[in-house]
């Protein structure tokens, strides 16, 4: 069954003429028609020599292997939901999960890469870090295998799985961003969430809410800002640290300056609460509903429901990001992850069977989403009735549909790259200095751009 899903629509002649087939795949398809006799196969193997390095072959139900899978707890627990079905389909493949927090997973990946051994077969990697590993050449080339999925998955997700025109990972969850807002706060201030068409509207609403309720519109730490909101708002406009050529544009693209100016105006006018993300005061304001909005990705809703504000049933709502210009983009991304196969793995077929089974089947992805709220990027799932169901936590809005719609529209942007972590580290102190009133927007951007050019050797 899994093989049929690999070829488009289970049709053995699909892709026959496109010249993209691997030799093993060709053999397999010939076998379907009874064409591949052993001698022919041996001949082709003999003439072709060894297969291209890093190329992975299509697994079958008799594929054997014993896989090691690295990742972090929540996501691994989600993958485990498919294990019973997977074992039924591939009885010869066993696997061990190694859960560690993301930072520890990366340290261990780097150590394994440097040492040249000790790595996993399959690794869960955040999109923000994926390009660095792909560029290092540490991941297996999956081009022929992920081919059928390129059109089936949110297109922006492929950006950091690629090196040149080759693919080295299989996308999992996207991070579509929207505005989570407290209904009671908006109501008390007399602001209609449906009227948030542009960021100017949002700014005016922030002033009204401050006036009427005394509450801040959003939570943005000054001295310990992490730059995530800034990145999200740049992403929405298809811009970022770098352009499509990889040149630094922080100090060149006027949209970048406008965005930072906008965020800064909230600090200057007292419309932002000075609370560091992921710390107790930040959680508390969300639990108590003393922040009017939280601009974050779909996974934030999961956190609200499960542990930040489990008692706030019906108190939160969701609307898409306001546009910068009326009718402009309202979609952005924050976070997201993928599964990659380590190039040093000796069991790439089995590893691909695992990745494909867990991420490439709508049934798997839907079940994972329903049980764990990890959002799928496989577009076929968005048509499931589950996405049209009202969500009582969000006052019976069809928020899943809202996020699915956003996920399909996320633009390509120059945020995540092989130097993302470094660029963020260099930018963040400049934003902090701005927030503390010690430098201008222009100075912050030109300082950050200069440092990034120096450190990452970019134009």
């Amino acid at each position, binding site marked *: 069954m899994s093989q049929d899903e690999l070829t488009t629509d289970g049709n053995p002649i699909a892709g026959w003429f496109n010249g993209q087939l691997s030799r093993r795949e060709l053999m397999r398809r010939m076998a379907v028609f009874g064409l591949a006799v052993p001698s022919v196969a041996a001949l082709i193997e003999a003439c072709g020599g060894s297969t291209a390095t890093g190329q992975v072959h299509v697994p079958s139900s008799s594929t054997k292997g014993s896989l090691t899978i690295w990742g972090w707890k929540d996501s691994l627990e989600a993958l485990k939901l498919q294990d019973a079905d997977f074992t039924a389909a591939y009885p010869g493949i066993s696997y061990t999960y190694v859960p560690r927090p993301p930072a520890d997973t990366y340290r261990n990946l780097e150590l394994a*890469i440097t040492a040249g051994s000790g790595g996993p077969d399959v690794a869960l990697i955040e999109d923000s870090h994926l390009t660095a590993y792909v560029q*290092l050449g540490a991941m297996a080339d999956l081009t022929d295998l992920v081919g059928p999925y390129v059109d089936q998955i949110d297109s922006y997700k492929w950006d950091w799985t690629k090196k040149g025109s080759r693919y080295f990972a299989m996308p999992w969850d996207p991070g579509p961003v929207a505005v989570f807002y407290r209904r009671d706060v908006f109501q008390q201030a007399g602001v209609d969430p449906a009227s948030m068409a542009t960021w100017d509207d949002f700014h005016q609403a922030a002033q009204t809410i401050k006036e009427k309720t005394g509450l801040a519109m959003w939570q943005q730490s000054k*001295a310990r800002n992490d730059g995530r909101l800034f990145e999200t708002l740049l992403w929405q406009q298809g811009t970022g640290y770098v352009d499509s050529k990889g040149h630094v544009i922080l100090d060149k693209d006027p949209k970048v300056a406008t965005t930072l100016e906008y965020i800064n105006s909230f600090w200057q006018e007292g419309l932002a609460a000075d609370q560091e993300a992921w710390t107790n005061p930040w959680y508390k304001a969300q639990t108590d509903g003393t922040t009017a909005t939280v601009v974050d990705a779909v996974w934030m809703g999961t956190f609200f429901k499960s542990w930040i504000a489990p008692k706030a049933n019906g108190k939160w709502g969701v609307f898409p990001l306001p546009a910068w210009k009326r009718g402009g983009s309202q979609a952005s991304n924050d976070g997201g992850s993928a599964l990659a196969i380590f190039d040093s793995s000796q069991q790439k077929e089995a590893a691909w069977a695992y990745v494909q089974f867990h991420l490439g089947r709508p049934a798997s992805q839907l079940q994972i989403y329903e049980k764990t709220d990890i959002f799928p990027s496989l577009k076929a799932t968005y048509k499931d009735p589950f996405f049209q169901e009202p969500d009582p936590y969000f006052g019976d809005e069809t928020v899943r549909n809202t996020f699915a719609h956003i996920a399909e529209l996320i633009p390509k942007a120059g945020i995540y790259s092989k130097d993302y*972590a470094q660029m963020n580290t260099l930018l963040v102190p400049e934003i902090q200095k701005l927030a503390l009133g*010690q430098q201008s927007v222009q100075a912050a951007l030109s300082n950050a751009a200069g440092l990034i050019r*120096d450190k990452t050797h970019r134009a």
Partner: protein
Amino acid sequence: MRTAMPGEAALDWRPGGRRLIRADAWRHGLWRHRWPLLFVSPFFILFAVFNIYPIGFSFWLSLNDWSGLGSMDWIGLDNYRELIHDSIFWNSMANSAIIFFIYVPVMTFMAAVLASILNGAFLKLQGLWRALIFLPNITSMVAAGYTFRLILDRDSGIANHALAWLHVSPVPWLDDIWWARISLGLLMIWAWLGYNTVIMLAGLQTIPSEVIEAARVDGATRVQAFFRITLPLLRPVIVFAVTLSIIGTFSMFTEPYVLTRGGPVNATDTPVQEIFSNTFEDLRFGYAAAMSYVYFAIIVVVTLAQFWFVSRSDPVK
């Protein structure tokens, strides 16, 4: 050319003969001491593998560009050239110097005072006090760092709650460039005061009590005796403690990494945090190795300069 005298070793007439005999003696000595050498060898083998080899390898690394995977590219002194213009690295050096002046004078003075109190015969339960003062030094720094972060949180920390109770306005402990450095200094004092006190105490015990008793008999107060007699006699020990503090401050890692993550605005970023992030976050092993070498050279120079300065102005000499 001379002929061999009777009785002289037959080998010795050849050029280099002496050396040969020495090599023989050396070999003979090795054999004679084989058992003791065997028993001390584990240390030297481990030292060579885990210390000498990495030190040599990182120098080699500092002349290369390497991301941890694939080939190393020889780039000569390029890493060092880049480092000269690296404002973030020099800022981290400057931070260490600033933080040093914030806490080391205070801590050293407190340690001297505490040590002389603990040394006094009038104090009861000396062992208990000594243990209590030393206790923070053996506490896990990660745990202590997180605790300090909770205590010093601007909105929810008990430090600001206590200040509010005293009608003092809240202090942005970790949210202001200078306060963050002071907070880091407080953590350093908390963790290292006991250690320095123990060093001072050891020094005090070498000072004959007659000297201080004589001063007291001559009418000096306890405070006068401390400043005029104890401190000058303690001088070499203080120099030693300050030298350790210089090295300790420039190699701070866990304390700022846990307490402030180097922020805000890189105000508590330290050289070792930079070396760490260049290695493990940016995967620039060669550049980080160059950083380590420059950092090491600077610490050596600063320490030697301090020794020179102190020995030159030593009143006892």
